């Protein structure tokens, strides 16, 4: 079944090129992957992320439930705070990576990957047995629009959106309520680009009006963006993508996500197993010279030509101008500066292990 977001006909009218992503017809680009990428680094980009799954959880025992169902201490969140978290299997494998937002004393919103919507809902509902909580998949009720880049906040401030408090007081990984006309919105300072930016949740029926409002206010300083640049932006920022860097066969410790696992909690699904590697390979960054990029699936070789790993994501970095990649490699080669090679369609490309991320934005002083 092919799904469309509430903004599909808007994208069509605006001339987007589409790709199938997790069963959704999504804009892959409007004009140019590179122009869209640079716009987010230097100005502002507008994304439709309505394919992402929203799961709402309410109830008197919501804190205890989420602490037992997820990898880190969700009960420690204050109202309006967000946290990156993992939904693990008992053996430590990753069902999905999530953002958890605390909306109230007994109310949380989880954003899961579109590709894992059913698996995440199913696991959470199964784990809710015995807790006084209700787990609801409300993905189809919500549209999600991201405004990302150094110019994003200025555009939102100039818009007709009403916020619970001034946008400048919304810190990174926080969420607040608001309204757009008669529609209720949630605005979070989160994203997947490595830049400052906001993600706005709005009822699906009002998505088109919000998209138009942001386009009008943003004018020439706002660029419509597709998923192609979202991928290169997150890769530069060293952020994992489920299905590439994360899977049921990889434990968080291998992915460099030990910090997302709180093993001091009494018990949770995946406790202890999450900190044990499922193989001898770990996630690293790779950089190369030239223009030819390592791609997902390509073999990583040591100096003797032995296969010591596999690339999971790679591209010619639009911001940096040289090829970057993430790869799982044998842990003995993990030190930054280690010289390895990638088999690029039969040609050996010299690469160097590099600490993640490849790119960090300059923090506002």
């Amino acid at each position, binding site marked *: 079944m092919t799904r469309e977001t509430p903004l599909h006909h808007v994208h069509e009218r605006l001339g987007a090129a589409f790709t199938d992503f997790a069963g959704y017809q999504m804009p892959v680009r409007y004009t140019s992957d590179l122009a869209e990428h640079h716009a987010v680094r230097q100005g502002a980009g507008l994304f439709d992320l309505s394919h992402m799954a929203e799961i709402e959880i309410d109830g008197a025992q919501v804190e205890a439930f989420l602490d037992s169902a997820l990898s880190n201490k969700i009960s420690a969140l204050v109202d309006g705070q967000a946290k990156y978290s993992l939904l693990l299997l008992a053996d430590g494998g990753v069902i999905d990576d999530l953002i958890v937002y605390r909306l109230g004393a007994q109310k949380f919103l989880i954003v899961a990957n579109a590709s894992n919507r059913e698996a995440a809902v199913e696991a959470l509902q199964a784990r809710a047995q015995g807790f006084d909580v209700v787990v609801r998949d409300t993905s189809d009720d919500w549209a999600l629009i991201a405004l990302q880049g150094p110019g994003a906040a200025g555009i939102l401030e100039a818009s007709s959106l009403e916020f619970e408090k001034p946008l400048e007081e919304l810190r990174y990984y926080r969420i607040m309520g608001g309204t757009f006309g008669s529609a209720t919105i949630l605005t979070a300072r989160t994203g997947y680009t490595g830049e400052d930016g906001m993600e706005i949740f709005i009822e699906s029926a009002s998505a088109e009006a919000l998209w138009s409002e942001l386009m009008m206010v943003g004018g020439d300083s706002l660029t419509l963006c597709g998923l192609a640049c979202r991928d*290169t932006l997150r890769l530069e920022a060293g952020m994992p993508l489920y299905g590439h860097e994360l899977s049921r066969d990889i434990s968080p410790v291998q992915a460099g996500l030990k910090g997302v696992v709180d093993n001091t909690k009494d018990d949770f699904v995946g406790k202890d197993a999450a900190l044990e590697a499922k193989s001898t390979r770990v996630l690293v960054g790779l950089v190369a010279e030239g223009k030819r990029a390592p791609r997902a699936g390509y073999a990583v070789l040591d100096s003797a030509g032995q296969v010591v790993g596999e690339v999971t994501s790679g591209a010619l970095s639009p911001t940096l101008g040289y090829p970057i990649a993430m790869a799982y490699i044998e842990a003995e080669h993990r030190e930054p500066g280690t010289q390895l090679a990638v088999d690029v369609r039969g040609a050996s490309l010299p690469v160097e292990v590099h600490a993640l991320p490849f790119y960090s934005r300059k923090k506002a002083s």
Partner: protein
Amino acid sequence: MSNVPDSLHYTTDHEWVLVEGDVATVGITQYAADALGDVVFVALPNLGDAIQKGAIVGEVESTKSVGEIFAPVAGEVVEANSAVVDTPDTVNSDPYGAGWLIKVRFAELPDLLDAAAYRALIGE
């Protein structure tokens, strides 16, 4: 709708061929360039290379994916467009002009698609 000039021949690998005497100029179609996205790397065969029809003779790589260049005719590479190697985005901006890839001297021209057949292939 992508541009499919009537004056060119086409292949099912989304390449165009301009025949002038015994030399075929080869490039990728606008449809192919659009599907790839921004082209950031082009690898071409060397001058004088003898190439077989259907062989992979080069690559056109975008930020998103890799496209292979298949030889639409057998023959000898008599020119390779070094300008697109230096500025690969020419493949996007002018696929049928400055974005050409190679010129091949051939002895025999295989069956190629005309513009109408290629438009049908890409559903336009």
